[in-house]
């Protein structure tokens, strides 16, 4: 990449923004139309793929990440990588049996007896 492409004063022609906006509108219609179809188990995949494409268009062109420095790329990517890592938490829900009914009332596992305080200890 040349220095010019990295320059924060790099001014994009306005038709880039118009094109991205038109694409976003097409994808918006597609979001709704796709929701009316039945792709079976792919339903969620289709819906989320369209959402991700929309988000990428906004991030890369409207937020200018595509024309930003490498350091900006790392920061922008870090947020989304972290977001994906968050879903590792699902491993817990998948492997745990959540259908165990909760006990009606909590009971202490062991009965604790109150330690007796002798008169000699009390004085100190």
């Amino acid at each position, binding site marked *: 990449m040349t220095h010019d492409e990295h320059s*924060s004063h790099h001014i994009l022609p306005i038709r880039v923004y118009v094109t991205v906006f038109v694409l976003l509108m097409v994808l918006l219609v597609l*979001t709704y139309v796709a929701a009316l179809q039945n792709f079976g188990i792919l339903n969620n995949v289709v*819906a989320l793929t*369209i959402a991700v494409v929309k988000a990428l268009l906004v991030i890369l062109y409207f937020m200018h990440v595509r024309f930003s420095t490498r*350091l900006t790329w790392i920061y922008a990517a870090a947020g989304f990588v972290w977001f994906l890592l968050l879903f590792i938490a*699902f491993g817990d829900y998948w492997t745990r049996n959540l259908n165990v009914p909760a006990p009606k009332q909590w009971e202490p596992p062991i009965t604790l007896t109150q330690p007796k305080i002798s008169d000699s200890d009390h004085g100190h």
Partner: protein
Amino acid sequence: MAIEATQGAVHEHTAAVAAQDEHGPVHHQFEDIEQQNESYIVGMWAFLVTEIMFFGALFLAYAVYRWKYPLVFIEAHKMLDIPLGLTNTFILLTSSFFVVLAVHYHKLNRRKLAATWLFLTVLCAFGFLVIKGFEYGHKFKVGHVPGPNFTFELPASASPEAKEQVTVERAQLFFGLYFAMTGLHGIHVLVGILILTPLAFMILKGHHHVVDDYIPTEMAALYWHFVDVVWIFLFPLFYLIPLH
């Protein structure tokens, strides 16, 4: 006398240059405007990463419960108004386009145009909140707001599986997530209005903090685009849950 006047003028000029150095576009700690702008943009992205973490936890909670009670989410989401949600998505995507035009014209130093597009963005934000207000109002009316007055009834046509899985408590869970996530997003829209409106007025007035360089507008725009991106995911996840 004349020489003194000239010297006075020169002195004033030097003072003006010094003041320019102190308060000009490039601050002391930066080499040049490029480095300064990159620092601002990276700083803004660092903030947006914390915002992703903020919303991320809610998205995870949504995913866990939708995975656990798929039929509850399908039945409860039918109570949301798709045309209004679609309109609001259209409004936010358009506002993102408007704010990027504001940045574009600020870069070209066309201040009036930049401010105009910012005002139009704010108008979109108000439109979004008004529609959201109508949606929330309707939910209060029909008792779909989590709390002591929460009610939820399955239509008689619901499948036996749905009738078995859907309970009032679980439906309340869906609406709890709906209000938490769209509510947090709505607060972000409100904050967007509070950032973009003064910015537009400051640009019109030519306040040096915002017209020395275009970067304040770019940073406000980054925030606004982020709000848009969150909604891009919220809309299909709440309004368009697949029925199959």
